[in-house]
């Protein structure tokens, strides 16, 4: 059974004359345990698809099925035990006045866990931070460490599907390598399914098995990563993206 099915998804912002169609008739499926990439330039609608899945973009039509459950306008609370998201900018995705302990503790509490202390310790170990970071505030952490905290927060409810919105584009290349390695390991250990958005073809090529190329809100091509590596993209736009990134 597939983990995620998207069929004829349309997402828009605003009403009437101000309406902007961000995603048009997008369809793809992601198998359980697979890592799927969404590639495109800014404004192509790739992040909007993630926000629609997670419920942060309320205006949409079409069909979205996560883990066999068709999504409606309102997400049940159990939905967030299945789907979690990591945001692009680690400097903006952590509350500036909450310590790492508060961030993880509150998340665990919201999901109804009882053994919070033990779980916070475990989560920090999982993302390679260790206990000395537990009571630090975001301004005492580097960009890479913050992104690790954000990943720990996403892992807290033990989700099956992780939505990654350009998780490394705000980081230096050496830190990017550390975070990407962490994501590869976590996926293996926790049998996670990834949907990863990136503008960087080589990052998606490294992380994903299949990818969709987006342009102007539409998916122009879905291909396997081998096709990408052999430079055999069919659509002229995918070819131009490939040419520009090598």
């Amino acid at each position: 059974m597939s983990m995620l099915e998207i069929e004829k998804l349309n997402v828009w912002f605003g009403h009437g004359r101000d309406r902007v169609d961000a995603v048009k008739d997008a369809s793809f499926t992601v198998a359980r345990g697979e890592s799927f990439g969404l590639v495109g330039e800014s404004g192509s609608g790739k992040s909007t698809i993630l926000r629609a899945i997670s419920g942060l973009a309320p205006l949409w039509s079409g069909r979205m099925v996560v883990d066999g459950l068709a999504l409606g306008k309102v997400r049940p609370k159990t939905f967030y035990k299945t789907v979690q998201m990591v945001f692009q900018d680690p400097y903006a995705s952590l509350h500036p006045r909450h310590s790492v302990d508060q961030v993880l503790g509150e998340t665990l509490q919201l999901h109804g866990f009882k053994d919070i202390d033990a779980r916070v310790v475990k989560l920090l170990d999982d993302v390679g931070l260790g206990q000395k970071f537990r009571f630090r505030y975001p301004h005492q952490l580097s960009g890479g460490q913050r992104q690790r905290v954000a990943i720990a927060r996403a892992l807290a409810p033990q989700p099956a599907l992780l939505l990654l919105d350009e998780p490394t584009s705000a980081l230096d290349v050496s830190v990017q390598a550390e975070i990407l390695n962490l994501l590869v390991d976590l996926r293996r250990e926790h049998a996670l399914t990834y949907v990863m958005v990136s503008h960087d073809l080589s990052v998606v090529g490294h992380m994903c098995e299949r990818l969709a190329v987006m342009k102007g809100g539409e998916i122009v091509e879905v291909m396997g990563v081998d096709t990408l590596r052999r430079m055999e993209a069919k659509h002229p736009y995918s070819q131009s993206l490939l040419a520009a990134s090598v």
Partner: protein
Amino acid sequence: METLLDVEDLWVKFPSRQGVFDAVRGVSFTLGRERLGIVGESGSGKSMTGRAILRLIRSPGIVEATQISLGGDDLMKKTEKEMRAVRGKRISMVMQDPKFSLNPVMTIGAQIIEAYRQHNKVSHADAYAKALEMLEAVSIRDAERVMRAYPHEMSGGMGQRIMIAMMLIPNPEILIADEPTSALDVSVQRQVLDIMDKLVKDRGMGLIFISHDLNLVADFCDRVLIMYAGRIVEICKADKLNEAKHPYTRGLLNSLPRLDAPRDHLEVLKRDPAWSEAPSVSGRV
């Protein structure tokens, strides 16, 4: 090769409660009529170096140098008033995000014309014609419409081209570009770089290109300085960057994912404290 700029033993210091923090530590290099790349990670001091040349470090930061010689004039000896004549006129700077560099409530045309008339005593009509010419030089089609537009109506690539056009109006000897294409999509990035390249070549300017992107710099520049913890750790010809020797440069290159060489895990940079202790390599020719 003729030397346009000679920087010798440049330091940027920030005194704080915990002691003095050195952002740039004894950097020396020269710039001829070439494209000089400065690469490094965030916090390596690459942007500080660019700003320090123009003495644009905000208080409490302090700039110290044996000399920053611009065609024989030592910029370190100039007063703040004399520096204002250097900035823009002889050395221009292009920043990362054009949105913050353009005035949001003035049309683009008005801003270019104002910038042009600040440096040249000409009539409004002449300045208008010149502004159109500048926009066309940076490959902006439909320049008359762009002149009437406001900055928020422009895409990132357009905005950056307009910034470059404005910076080139006074015909500076040196252009400092601080991550000029980092906010742009790859396809637009290429166009902006091509325009910059053409202008620099045609006018015989010196270009200092500051970036975190190794591949981009290797592709675009002639010579590359690699900075780490405020020092230059290595200098190499841009086309020889793949043969770089310093473990830091090698580590950066190896940590990039590559489409043609799939790996299970990426190589992680192991930082050696000795790198930041070693004296800065001189980039003077």
